[in-house]
């Protein structure tokens, strides 16, 4: 049965709720309404108000409460209605959740789900990709799945993980990506990137919605005799450096692609690791493709110009291939 990215997350949540009575959901409009994107649709009916908690508009308190509940042995899964509002809970995440284990040995097994990304004309406050600030925070784990399979497998792993996990779901993929998922239960390990297409001439390292852009570009360039390897990071923190380096060592050229804005985005971190640890293998500059340094604009032509896309990737890939 083909399953959407959204439905895959819902299934993952559902299965974990069935499996473990300590898993519960906390967020705005997740109960009766089933969540702004309907990821938790039906859960209130199945699991009741005790386990599906509609909260006031209080992102900081929602995350704080999840931390507190996790100390008591529960495994809270928070929904932030749009990842743009995660900034309201920033202190709780980076200072409370992220540092407890290190400071005094208290694990914080919480998951914070947040629909992120552009391409839906959401404008400056319903389109952001806030992962970079959290990838910078030791103690957090950060996930950004690109496929329905990974989304389901990773949300399940996130819930079972004993550290705080941020789970960025790409809104534009929710209903666009469909796959046949296995009947039987499975999980996908946190911290493992995946080579989603093998290639010889250059590597595109990416995650989230951009994985699909990279694959399209690879497909298209195949016809031109350019063989592209695509690495889907899947987990952004901890970074699976090995898979990235192996790929770049093989192809000798790297494009780092993300939808988030360029300066201070994840591309820099990847570039630095490659140039520190695979310098001798490089046959060309490490290239970043990312959104420019502006807020996410609303108007379609501006948003289109803002988002990395097939054309931009293809052009850069051609250039780098020739280099």
């Amino acid at each position, binding site marked *: 049965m083909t399953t959407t990215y959204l439905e895959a997350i819902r299934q993952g949540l559902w299965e974990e709720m069935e499996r473990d009575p300590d898993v519960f959901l906390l967020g705005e409009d997740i109960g009766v309404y089933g969540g702004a994107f309907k990821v938790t649709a039906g859960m209130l009916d199945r699991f009741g108000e005790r386990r599906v908690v509609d909260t006031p*508009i209080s992102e900081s308190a929602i995350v704080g409460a999840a931390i507190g509940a996790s100390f008591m042995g529960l495994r809270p899964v928070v929904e932030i209605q749009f990842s743009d509002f995660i900034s309201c809970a920033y202190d709780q995440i980076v200072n409370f959740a992220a540092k407890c284990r290190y400071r005094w040995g208290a694990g914080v097994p919480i998951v914070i789900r947040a629909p992120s990304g552009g391409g839906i004309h959401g404008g400056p406050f319903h389109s952001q990709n806030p992962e970079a600030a959290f990838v910078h925070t030791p103690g957090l784990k950060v996930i950004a799945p690109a496929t329905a399979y990974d989304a389901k497998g990773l949300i399940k792993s996130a819930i079972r993980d004993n550290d705080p996990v941020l789970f960025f779901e790409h809104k534009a993929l929710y209903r666009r990506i469909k796959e046949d998922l296995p009947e039987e239960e499975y999980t996908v390990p946190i911290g493992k990137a995946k080579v989603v297409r093998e290639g010889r001439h250059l590597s595109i390292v990416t995650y989230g919605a951009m994985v699909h852009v990279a694959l399209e570009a690879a497909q298209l360039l195949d016809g031109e005799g350019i063989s592209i390897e695509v690495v889907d990071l899947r987990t952004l923190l901890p970074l699976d450096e090995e898979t990235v380096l192996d790929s770049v060592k093989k192809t000798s050229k790297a494009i780092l692609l993300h939808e988030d804005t360029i300066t201070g985005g994840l591309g820099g971190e990847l570039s630095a690791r490659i140039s520190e640890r695979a310098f001798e293998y490089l046959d060309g500059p490490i290239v970043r493709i990312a959104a420019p340094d502006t807020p996410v*604009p609303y108007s379609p032509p501006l948003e289109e110009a803002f988002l990395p896309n097939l054309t931009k990737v293809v052009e850069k890939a051609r250039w780098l291939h020739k280099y």
Partner: protein
Amino acid sequence: MGAGLAVAGDPALESAREYSAEQARRFFYYMSMMREVEDRIERKLYRQGKIVGGVYVGRGQEAIPVGAGLAAAPDDMLFPSHRDMALYLIRGVHPRQIFAQYMGRIGGLTRGRDGNMHMGDLRLRIVAIISAMAASVPVAAGAALAMRYKGTRDVAFCFFGDGATSRGDWHEGLNLASVQRVPLVLICNNNQYAYSTPIEKQMACANVADRGPAYGIPAEIVDGNDVFAVHSAALRAVEHARSGLGPYLIECKTFRMTGHSAHDPADYVPKHLWKTWGERDPIDRAKYAILANQWAEPEEIAAIESGIRREVDSAIEWAENSPYPDASELLEDVYER
């Protein structure tokens, strides 16, 4: 107001007593214009796919921005929430700019950079919200602080919903404003829902006004569907703030006569509430007061209404002809040039 019109002794009549025909007609004009603009946005343009982003309207709540907005002096600063379209109209933003804004055209207040009611213009002394609920509250407090600093007698008006009062920024903003005794008028539209969440899941006190004492801020509750009552309360608040007594909170009891946003059918709202609150429609009630007081003939009312429709028709046409911004504008204005 359908049933309402027939109700004798409608409270709007009481509250309208001190008002003039001209004032009442202004109230009626702005409320009707807001309704018409938003109806077109939500029920036409959005459904036609001409508006690609989120749409949140204030149907049924028009008395709040109109009553409060017309109590503000031109130099007072306005901080609208997402259901206060009339504030823009009152400040002279033309409907065509609003339609262009929603459609992402350069004719909009943000030239397509932002959508819907995320718009502002410092020359008109109206500040654009950000999405994060209640984030404007401390910002409005700061504007009010600056007014006192500069020694003006201006006031800042900050608008927000019931749900927004749960946010930390709301608390911090009210507290700072009150400790500093700044001229801030706080207008809550309590429409009893925050998206799908009913008020009893948002707060454990009966009224938003019950929160005033926590900040030493006087608070009153007003019928938010009665534009005369809202206007009178706002005048009291402005008087208080302008005379240096600090912030003042008005809670307007109302109801959101539509979904949270254009894509929300609001099935979670018990049916009877639509009926109850439909009978309290603020525009119908104003119309009733006008007719009952013989401030206008039915034909004059009809003429205002059809004038609004014509204005809106041509505004939409203008907006549809306004070009999209060019991609070359993408990188501008992140910093001062």
